[in-house]
């Protein structure tokens, strides 16, 4: 084997990796926030009694959850311009990850909505609130509390999906790592550090969500 570890080259490029990580986080936060808005609308559609809401929402979720995200990333960046819809690399990737997150978050939110007692909606109706007011002031805040414990695995998985932006040369963490790998030949070191950065970030995301969960926990 005769491979001796030498982290020097990686440390010299550490700034480059960190910048990549920051970009990864930026992509994830933006896309997941947009995806959460999409997911929320879809989740309400999925639990509604109106077929014209349920069918399109179910179709959206089923199609997207069964497609590999890399196909979507390439499609948005290389094929959409053919239809006259041209976006730069970053916007194109954010579009894809947002749409994709929407499908996954919709399922998480739907489960959270189903566990809210129907009586709360009735109590809201009884004091004269409209359905929209009930959704925003009662159902959504409770749903968020319901889903927080199960949200972290979805959020972490979506964060990891930002690595696919490397396929269209967005200089996020994976792209940066590959560049250092090719230029420095410190292969093992590069991927060890990269993996460590991803793992540490995933732990931080999980810790952050647990913190939010505790902050929002209702006193009893």
């Amino acid at each position: 084997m005769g491979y001796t570890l030498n982290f020097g080259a990686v440390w010299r490029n550490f700034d480059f990796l960190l910048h990549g990580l920051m970009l990864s986080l930026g992509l994830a936060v933006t896309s997941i926030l947009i995806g959460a808005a999409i997911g929320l609308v879809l989740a309400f559609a999925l639990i509604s009694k109106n077929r014209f809401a349920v069918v399109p929402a179910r179709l959206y979720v089923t199609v997207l959850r069964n497609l590999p995200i890399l196909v979507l990333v390439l499609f948005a960046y290389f094929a959409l311009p053919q239809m006259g819809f041209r976006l730069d690399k970053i916007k194109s990737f954010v579009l894809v990850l947002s749409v994709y997150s929407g499908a996954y978050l919709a399922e998480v939110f739907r489960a959270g909505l189903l566990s809210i007692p129907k009586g709360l909606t009735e109590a809201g109706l009884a004091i004269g609130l409209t359905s929209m007011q009930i959704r925003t002031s009662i159902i959504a805040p409770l749903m968020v509390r319901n889903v927080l414990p199960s949200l972290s695995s979805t959020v972490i998985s979506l964060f990891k999906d930002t690595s696919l932006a490397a396929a269209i040369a967005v200089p996020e963490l994976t792209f940066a790592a590959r560049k250092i790998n090719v230029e420095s030949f410190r292969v093992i070191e590069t991927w060890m550090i990269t993996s460590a950065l991803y793992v540490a970030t995933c732990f931080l995301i999980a810790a952050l969500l647990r913190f939010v969960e505790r902050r929002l926990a209702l006193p009893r």
Partner: protein
Amino acid sequence: MSQSFLDQLWTARYVIMSGLGMSVSISLLAILAGSVLGVFVGMALVFGGAALRFAVRAYTDIVRGTPVLVLVLASYYVSSAVGVNLGPFTAGVLALAIFCSSHVGEIVRGALQAIPKGQTEAAKAIGLTFTQTFTSVLWPQAMRQFLPAWVNTAAEMVKASTLLSVIGVAELLLRTQEIISRNFLSLQFYFLAGALYFIVNYGIERFGKYVERKTTLPS
């Protein structure tokens, strides 16, 4: 336009089929190897001693905290750097198998731990050994939890198999890109690839639902 797409599709039919075949082979190999490894991972997490549990927990946390694309790239570059020349196919399948093993490990752990403690105690009380308890009491119950989740992992693997295109394995997505580079029909051929992936994964999803119905105990 559509005439030319059909022409191009006819020309590319064998290339697409070989790509699809490659994607299916990658997924099957990764699922098989990953599941065997994953069962050991899960058992170690539940029945292992403290040191083994810690080591295996570190393994699953690292694998689950790393994007699959990073696993694929690392497997490919690292294996050649240390002189084990695996080639893109084997390196890619290895990465997916590792990814699969951590998922399967978690599912196995979850399935085993969902069984009430009283079951083991009841088995002991009627004099079963650990092996007997495991094979005739714990395993059959765990399988009911395990199977539907495992089928879903299979769909994850098919999706992850696309990542091997990045290291040059000629699976469906790379084949599609090659075809597009010749005829520039990116819209049509990405749609086609998407449709093929959807059909395979949707089939797996329906099968998972079927398995779930079949394995649910009557109540």
